[in-house]
């Protein structure tokens, strides 16, 4: 029989040659720190131990919803209250709170037209909830993004007859759609400028700009887009954009030197979604190996650019649900997912980190892609987002 010494010596190292607890796992934990307590390990146990009780509870819940049309709203309000900092309630109430807690998603989409035509933008406001009919809360043209305590509008305007299209931003919560007039130089000297919005998150907007027939990507501060766009600085390539850098964790974020210091960084990166994440692809020359890696693999955006840049589903699970999936997003509290194919976007509730029920299936327009996925999960914000964004879209429709 092995002795104590022998056992301790042979087992002193971990079981495997490869360490499972790595930087990737550490980051996943840190990204989940703001989640509420997970009941995942216990839910199935309770199901197994009290299956009959559960059936009775489901039947009672169905009965309640049928008898009382306000039940879902009241239950959600109650759950929101529980999710705050109040004293711990019973385990049953906590389970209810977790299952009822909502996330809300502002999903921005862009559809590119034929070459030379303008792109079209729209925003979907999708809120989780127990009933599929709750899910699509609002929809409107243009992009509505949260920034600070307000919602801001983003769109691209065409300045006829110059063939100039410029992105602009405005505080939609505090006024109408008033895009600053762009100064127009002598029309004979104006080259064609075409801008498209690629990404919106935090206070940053990535745009693709075609100038003299060449597309380059630029990360812009929302303040620059909301200010008078100066066409001359754009044409000369000296408009302020946001310098980016590779952080210690291997992600790309706003350079610590400052947000709008100058044109530094413009055109050095390309931005795109890949495998459900916002990624930057390095285009600048430099260390050939590093350049090749950045160009091929891309580096994920860090939290300075977008609050939530993680996918809580395996691609195997995504493709099991939607074999033609091309993109996906999941909520920070892992209770809601959207899977995009070329033709539609399918929303699911999630349970225990897995897809649960298909709740909503919306058709996508040809070529439509995600340019924004902003989430609210705190109970204080969920209802406010639904109310305020719906109101903004209603006003837009009246304009």
């Amino acid at each position, binding site marked *: 029989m092995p002795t104590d010494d022998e056992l301790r010596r042979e087992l002193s190292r971990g079981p495997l*040659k490869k360490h499972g607890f790595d930087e990737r796992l550490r980051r996943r934990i840190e990204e989940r720190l703001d989640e509420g307590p997970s009941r995942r390990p216990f839910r199935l146990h309770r199901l197994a131990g009290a299956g009959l009780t559960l059936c009775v509870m489901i039947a009672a819940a169905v009965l309640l919803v049928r008898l009382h049309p306000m039940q879902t709203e009241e239950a959600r309000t109650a759950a929101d209250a529980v999710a705050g900092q109040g004293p711990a309630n019973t385990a049953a109430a906590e389970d209810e709170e977790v299952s009822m807690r909502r996330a809300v998603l502002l999903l921005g989409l862009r559809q590119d037209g034929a070459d030379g035509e303008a792109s079209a933008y729209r925003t979907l406001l999708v809120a989780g909830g127990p009933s599929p009919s709750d899910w699509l809360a609002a929809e409107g043209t243009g992009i509505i993004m949260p920034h600070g305590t307000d919602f801001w509008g983003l769109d691209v305007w065409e300045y006829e007859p110059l063939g100039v299209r410029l992105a602009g931003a405005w505080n939609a919560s505090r006024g109408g759609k008033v895009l600053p007039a762009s100064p127009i130089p002598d029309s004979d000297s104006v080259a064609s400028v075409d801008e498209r919005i690629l990404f919106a998150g935090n206070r940053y907007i990535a745009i693709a700009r075609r100038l003299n027939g060449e597309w380059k990507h630029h990360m812009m501060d929302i303040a620059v887009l909301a200010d008078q766009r100066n066409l001359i600085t754009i044409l000369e390539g000296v408009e302020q954009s946001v310098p980016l850098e590779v952080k210690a964790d291997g992600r790309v974020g706003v350079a610590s030197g400052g947000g709008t210091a100058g044109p530094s960084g413009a055109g050095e990166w390309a931005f795109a979604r890949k495998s459900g994440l916002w990624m930057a692809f390095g285009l600048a020359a430099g260390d050939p190996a590093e350049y090749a890696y950045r160009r091929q693999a891309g580096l994920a955006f860090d939290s300075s650019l977008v609050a939530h840049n993680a996918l809580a589903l395996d691609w195997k699970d995504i493709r099991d649900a939607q074999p033609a999936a091309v993109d996906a997003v999941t909520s920070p509290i892992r209770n809601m997912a959207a899977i995009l194919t070329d033709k539609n976007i399918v929303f699911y509730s999630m349970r225990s980190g897995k897809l649960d029920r298909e709740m909503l299936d919306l058709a996508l327009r040809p070529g439509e892609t995600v340019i924004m996925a902003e989430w609210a999960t705190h109970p204080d914000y969920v209802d406010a987002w639904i109310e305020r964004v719906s109101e903004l879209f209603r006003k837009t429709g009246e304009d």
Partner: protein
Amino acid sequence: MEAGVPETAEAPHEAAAAPGADCVGTRGGEVRSDTGFEYLRYIGEHADRKALLTELMHAYGKDVWNFAFSMTKKWDQADDIAQEVFLKAYRNLHTFRSQSSVKTWLLAITRNMVLDYRKQSFFRRVVLVDAFREDGASSSAEREVIESLAVNEMWKKVLELPYKYREVVILYAHHQLSMKEIAEMLGVSEGTVKSRLFHARRKLAEKGGGGGDADG
């Protein structure tokens, strides 16, 4: 029953793991010497918990993951469990007043999580119709991982031990917990721990060239 040291009676609540381990650690275990985290007993609610968590993950991330993997033999479950353990520890850092070491506290949380996952697994096997296909495939995948990545033959043999023997061997020989700490964590007597260690060693000796028992 095997000859030699008899299996002693187990505490009735053993299957549910040590009480209190969810949040406040095991009680009554001897204080171990992870002095770097002694201050955890005294931190207030306004401490920089994220910084503390980073330190804990740095110090004990591998311990937690290794224990989770050793008990589940599933890489993805070890990932999930390690996440849940540190998230739970993060939420309960200010409640840590246990007499046990931080490492023992984290391992106790890990054990509870593993038991929860095992119950989930049991539920799937018993209730879901496609359980056999899933179980067979995952067992094969487990064997492949262990066969190709285990650091040595002893670990391979330990990972083939039935659950209750594997658990005590790993806590004792890899994590180097005392008999008393293991007994506290498992909610059994020290005699039971010694008995299980004895049987575990016998099974390891019997294995010699291999051949594993079913997970128990």
